[in-house]
């Protein structure tokens, strides 16, 4: 395997590099060099070859080849991805990769998105910034997901890293616009400030003013998730002095005429997020907007539109044929017919995020118009079905999409009902699925025509989609679906289960069968200690396991923790005020929430009272 990796690296390198001497190129291509032969090359050459290997998994593999390769790889590694911030400590990270420039960190488990994890659970950024700052690491990029970020951390970040270029925060919380002000004021080389779906305490201050006049390097600015007012003229001046700006996503406080002015001074925009315009604009404003939009011939991606009058969408008709990415999933005010009218002209669309108000009819239009579609997400506009509306989507829309869009590989679909027949058709139409997430709004709902479970439907998905990496199942499901998943889903890395299965066998099928499983998250399913404890070694091959409202008991969890000291086994119990008592009786008590993950640094010290680490 490593030999093949080497050869590939060589060929990659030599196809791109003109700086290596001919005799080396010649030798490499003619001979299949083994690693020991490669060691005759100077380190710089090997390092140069490694530069072409970007994927962190490949780099992890290279580092295992030999001691010298491990060392070279360490010092040449600039990008590190840490999927669980508690799996490793900042100090160990820095010791191994002192030349780190780009760091990605993920904190809270995925189900935190759905309010299943207490707010104070953890995932704090500060220790990382503190350590990186003290070690004088030349940090340039930081990407965070579900971390708790404080203004102090942002301030420290902004002062510690001279070359800092890019900050991307996704689903984070704990900071205010004051933290943003520090970033704006102190990061002299800032290129990217991308805030996605964060909970930010908006002090409605002047953070945008804090970008100095000398800051002209911005390439991407996204503050769509901010709730408050911003200084419009500061924004306009910032955009005007940022000739490299490609991506701009504004928040709801940016009115129509301001948007027009922004677009007029940034016709080079590729990615635009639009604010909020409740009222129908005046004819003149509308015409100005349309004129500005026409000039943005490079525009490929459009998003925003929360609380927007439908007519504003029509202003974008002139460029809709160029769009490759469209996110209207926050456009609750735009009705299905307007969505359909717009989307039918977006012939080059590759990514579409939309609300189910588009309806099955709308999805049929998408299927016939958007032949380049690769990723589709359909979100529920009425998640609790309170209005009993008939415009939500069903299996009909899904089948239409699968039939019409040959390049589709990722789907997230919220719907009212599903059938096995439809899922089987979809599986046969789209064998290239990488991600398939289906959420039937009513838990444990069966096939609405046959009243049977959806085991066969999902079974077909895993059987036909041989490259499937991510799967979320829903509806009425027995142990059988997990038998299928264990049998067929060979590439599956992440599985989400809710209200499914009958016995421990279900979970065991998955743990035994899915060799590449990294993340398993389960809620409200009857899996217990037998499944949890059957193969403790399996968890070393996985990033994490989440189980909530299942049948596992405290006793089972304790046994697991004893047998697997390299795991952190966390019990989250929000009903108790303090740590759980440890008397005999409790052993049989069911655990509300269990979260376990492999780690090389043992028990974390920052857990709140509601979390007990066994």
């Amino acid at each position, binding site marked *: 395997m490593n030999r093949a990796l080497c050869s590939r690296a060589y060929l990659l390198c030599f196809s791109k590099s003109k700086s290596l001497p001919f005799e080396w190129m010649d030798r490499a291509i003619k001979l299949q060099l083994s690693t020991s032969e490669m060691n005759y090359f100077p380190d710089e050459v090997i390092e140069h070859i490694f530069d072409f290997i970007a994927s962190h998994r490949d780099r992890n593999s290279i580092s295992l080849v030999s001691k010298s390769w491990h060392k070279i790889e360490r010092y040449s590694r600039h990008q590190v991805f840490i999927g669980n911030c508690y799996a490793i400590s900042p100090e160990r990270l820095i010791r191994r990769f002192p030349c780190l420039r780009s760091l990605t960190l993920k904190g809270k488990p995925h*189900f935190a*998105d*759905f*309010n*299943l994890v207490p707010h104070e659970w953890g995932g704090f950024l500060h220790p990382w910034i503190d350590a990186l700052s003290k070690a004088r690491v030349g940090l340039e990029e930081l990407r965070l997901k579900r971390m708790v970020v404080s203004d102090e951390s942002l301030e420290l970040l902004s002062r510690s890293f001279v070359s800092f270029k890019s900050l991307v925060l996704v*689903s984070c919380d704990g900071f205010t616009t004051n933290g943003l002000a520090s970033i704006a004021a102190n990061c002299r080389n800032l290129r990217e400030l991308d805030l996605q*779906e*964060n*909970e930010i305490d908006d002090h409605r201050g002047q953070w945008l003013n804090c970008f100095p006049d000398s800051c002209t390097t911005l390439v991407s600015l996204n503050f769509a*998730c901010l709730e408050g007012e911003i200084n419009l003229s500061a924004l306009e001046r910032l955009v005007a002095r940022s000739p490299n700006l490609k991506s701009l996503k504004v928040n709801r406080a940016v009115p129509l005429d301001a948007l027009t002015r922004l677009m007029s001074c940034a016709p080079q925009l590729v990615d635009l997020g639009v604010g909020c315009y409740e009222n129908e604009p005046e004819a003149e404003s509308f015409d100005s907007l349309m004129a500005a939009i026409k000039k943005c011939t490079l525009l490929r991606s459009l998003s925003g539109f*929360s*609380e927007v009058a439908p007519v504003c969408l029509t202003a974008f008709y002139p460029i809709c044929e160029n769009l490759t990415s469209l996110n209207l*999933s*926050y*456009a*609750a*005010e735009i009705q299905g017919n307007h969505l359909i009218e717009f989307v039918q002209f977006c012939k080059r669309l590759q990514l579409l995020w939309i*609300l189910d108000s588009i309806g099955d009819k709308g999805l049929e239009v998408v299927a016939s118009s958007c032949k380049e579609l690769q990723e589709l997400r359909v*979100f*529920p*506009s*009425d*998640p*609790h*079905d*309170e209005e*009993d509306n008939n415009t939500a989507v069903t299996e009909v829309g899904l089948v239409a999409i699968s039939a019409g869009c040959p390049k589709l590989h990722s789907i997230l679909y*919220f719907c009212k009902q599903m059938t096995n027949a439809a899922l089987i058709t979809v599986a046969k139409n789209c064998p290239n699925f990488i991600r398939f997430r289906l*959420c039937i*709004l*009513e*838990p444990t709902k069966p096939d609405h025509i046959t009243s049977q479970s959806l085991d066969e439907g999902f079974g077909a998905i895993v059987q036909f989609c041989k490259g499937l990496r991510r799967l*979320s199942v829903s509806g009425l499901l027995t142990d059988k679906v997990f038998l299928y998943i264990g049998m067929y889903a060979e590439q599956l890395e992440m599985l*989400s289960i*809710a209200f499914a299965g009958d016995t421990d066998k279900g979970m065991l099928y998955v743990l035994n069968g899915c060799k590449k499983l990294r993340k398993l998250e389960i*809620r*409200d399913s009857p899996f217990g200690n037998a499944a949890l404890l059957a193969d403790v070694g399996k968890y070393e091959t996985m990033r994490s396991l989440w189980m909530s409202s299942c049948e596992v008991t405290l006793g089972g969890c304790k046994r697991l923790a004893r047998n697997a000291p390299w795991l952190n086994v966390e019990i989250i119990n929000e009903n108790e005020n303090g740590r759980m008592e440890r008397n005999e009786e409790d052993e049989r008590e069911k655990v509300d929430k269990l979260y376990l993950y492999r780690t090389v640094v043992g028990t974390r010290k920052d857990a709140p009272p509601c979390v007990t680490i066994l």
Partner: protein
Amino acid sequence: MANESNLAHEITELRLGLPGDIIVTGKKRVSSEVESELKCEPATKSQVVGWPPVCSFRRKNSLEETRTAYVKVSVDGAAFLRKIDLKMYKRYQDLASALQILFGCFITFDGTLKESECVPIYEDKDGDWMLAGDVPWEMFVASCKRLRVMKRSVMK
């Protein structure tokens, strides 16, 4: 349906629904008072925590209607109309207090003061003028487009 004795009991309670408010088991449309008590228990599937799995940011920003509900309020005899955000209030009582502050008129929404001078009516999504106070608070907020406080003298 509530029987006679229940009705008699409920009429004497001070609360903001009409007498005879019942819990409809299908859709769980309850009077605002009762609903606030029920909120802590996941009574139906639709109230299960974290289901459907839509992330909380998305829930806040698109699904639960828009975040403000400004409506024009006119009171007979007042020189100017006002605009108020119905989302600022959680129940009819709060709205009544606000109107009292803004206009000085004393109204109730539960029909108890039948002799009162001021009658609150509202224009709903269909354009019909309705007596305010019949439906649960959330339903009222969702359907109210305009509010008017009529003086009884005008009605006759």
